[in-house]
């Protein structure tokens, strides 16, 4: 298995820079997930690592050795494509054997590798069949088998689950995780689905417009998004991003007013021990996930939620409404919470949660957010 390094990697399509000077380190046996919206460059980046796209500037190192001038077949990588890309005119067995035969491996070795991979993926009865005689899920496993038999230094997956239907997708996710543990392999996975990213990754790389927005473990990226983009992208339902204005700023406390109807305050939120000071009157954004809210007890300080829509999911209830008449929020309550459109619910914040973003969209770390009149969170 292998470590992967990207140094100042750049690529242009004509005049447009689609990959902008990226730096990234992926450790041995890590499962890294490149995630981002369509067009962010994640697939291009993967293909550059594989050698299928030319690099305009920068370097790619596998196990410390530069591979930018090395043809794809010689980089010691294997790739599973979104459309599986099986050779339609060959049986599954021949699909798996093709690369090995071209590399000159002896027949016994080829057969041994294929039978091991087939057993692992449970595709042994499929080996004599052609791709058109298989279902989507079967083809995908054959495609993974083709990657495994190469015994590569790292696996590359280009949105392999996007063509599967929902139930199959979650099953395959589990299988890929199991595979990762079993093979102890370095893997890079590209997806646009942040749920997939969160469940699979050791390390998430959030990409946007050819740039890396944040790199970190799923929990880091979820609990400590570095900017508005990551905050918005990760997590489902999406984080509530509420415009606010700074009311007062001291070294230990930052008070912001949520913007309500007609610029009135919809509620004041205090951030303890902010990492930076922000001038009063500045525009900021408060980030609160749906799960960060709770129903306030009687008489406690509360934000006023007017309910517009209610979604009941069984184990939770998603309440969509507005704070102070203007700021739209989604709040997650218990499954049994009584809520109907038109109701008004007093909300408080759970301790130790909440995010603050400055006018430039960058996160301002703090110890947590609370309503005025509630105890400090630590």
């Amino acid at each position, binding site marked *: 298995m292998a470590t992967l390094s990207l*140094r*100042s*990697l*750049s690529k242009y399509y004509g005049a447009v*820079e689609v990959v*902008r*000077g*990226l*730096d990234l380190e992926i450790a041995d046996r890590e499962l890294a997930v490149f995630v981002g919206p369509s067009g962010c460059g994640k697939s291009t980046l993967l293909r550059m690592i594989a050698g299928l796209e*030319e*690099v*305009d*500037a*920068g*370097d790619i190192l596998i196990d410390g050795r530069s591979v930018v001038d090395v043809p794809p077949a010689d980089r010691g990588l294997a790739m599973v494509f979104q459309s599986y890309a099986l050779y339609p005119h060959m049986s599954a067995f021949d699909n798996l054997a093709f690369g090995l035969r071209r590399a000159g491996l002896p027949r016994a070795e080829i057969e041994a590798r294929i039978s091991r991979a087939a057993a692992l993926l449970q595709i042994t009865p499929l080996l004599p069949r052609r791709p058109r005689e298989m279902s989507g899920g079967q083809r995908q496993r054959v495609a993974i088998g083709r990657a495994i038999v190469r015994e590569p230094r790292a696996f590359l997956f280009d949105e392999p689950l996007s063509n599967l239907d929902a139930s199959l997708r979650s099953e395959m996710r589990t299988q890929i995780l199991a595979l990762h543990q079993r093979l102890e392999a370095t893997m890079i996975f590209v997806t646009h689905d942040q749920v997939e990213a969160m469940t699979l990754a050791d390390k998430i790389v959030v990409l946007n417009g050819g740039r890396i927005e944040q790199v970190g473990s799923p929990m880091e990226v979820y609990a400590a998004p570095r900017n508005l983009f990551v905050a918005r992208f990760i997590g489902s339902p999406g984080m509530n991003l509420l415009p606010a204005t700074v009311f007062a700023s001291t070294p230990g406390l930052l008070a912001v007013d949520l913007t309500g109807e007609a610029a009135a305050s919809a509620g004041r939120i205090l951030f303890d021990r902010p990492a930076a000071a922000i001038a009063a009157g500045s525009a900021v954004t408060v980030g609160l996930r749906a799960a960060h809210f709770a129903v306030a007890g009687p008489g406690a300080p509360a934000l006023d939620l007017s309910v517009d829509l209610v979604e009941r999911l069984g184990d939770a209830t998603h309440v969509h409404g507005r704070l102070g008449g203007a700021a739209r929020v989604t709040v997650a309550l218990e499954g049994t919470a009584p809520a109907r459109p038109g109701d008004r619910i007093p909300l408080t914040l759970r301790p130790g949660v909440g995010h603050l973003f400055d006018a430039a969209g960058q996160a301002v770390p703090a110890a947590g957010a609370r309503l005025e009149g509630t105890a400090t969170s630590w």
Partner: protein
Amino acid sequence: MTARGPGVRRRPRAWLTAVLRHAALIAVAALLMLPFYWMLVSALKSRGQIFARPLQWWPDPPVWSNLVAVLDYPGFPYWLLLGNTLFYAGMVTLGTVLSCAAAGYSFACLRWRGRDTLFAATVATLLIPAIATFLPTYLIWARLGLTGTYWPLILPAYLGNAFFIFMLRQFFLGIPRELFDAARMDGAGELRIFLQIALPIVRPALIVVAVFTTLYTWHDFFGPLIYLQDPADFPLSVGLFAFRSQRTTEWALSMTAALYTTLPLVLLFALASGYFLRGARIAKF
């Protein structure tokens, strides 16, 4: 980080292969255009210039009168030949489009007993060359007293052509069945469904058929040669052949004549090039 890292590569190797590819394509294009060029250039030469040594790559001076002289030259009545060709091509194209659309539609969208067997037979005839049938066919027309006319050449077109039937059937197959079922439920008759629903949808394919039929008919030599006897009936292909047979040394005028035989098709291509290229793609089923 947007700093250009060490060794900004402008991909020299990829650029070089692109240049080489273009060079090869330009060389091939030049070779393929050479006959056209020579046809044009020779059309403007006098008899002496054709055989001048060293070879004249551009006539000096160009004999522009050739361009006009050949239009009414004894042995090459251009306008008459052109008119015959247009008549021939037009009539055949009309018949082909009508008959092949009807048959293709029938094979694709209508259900009747024996349909698939007969379609298989149709496909089989694609492999049967004209040699197999032209002799008895000629005799039949001769017995009917219709040799020396265009009937033997035009009438079969109104019955159909295996290749275009095959092609149009492919297009008709692409029409969703529901459209027809809905129309039938609305009480539309079969003819109306064909004319008002199916035909408009496959219109581009019909144009492709028309364009290619015109091309093939314009090129047709064998058919007119065996059925037509009066030189006044000849289309351009046979007319040019006759001209060449008699005036083997009139190279310049032969080139001009060849040019005029080709020009209308180039014009057609200029107007409908998309359909030509589309047709080449369709042919690969």
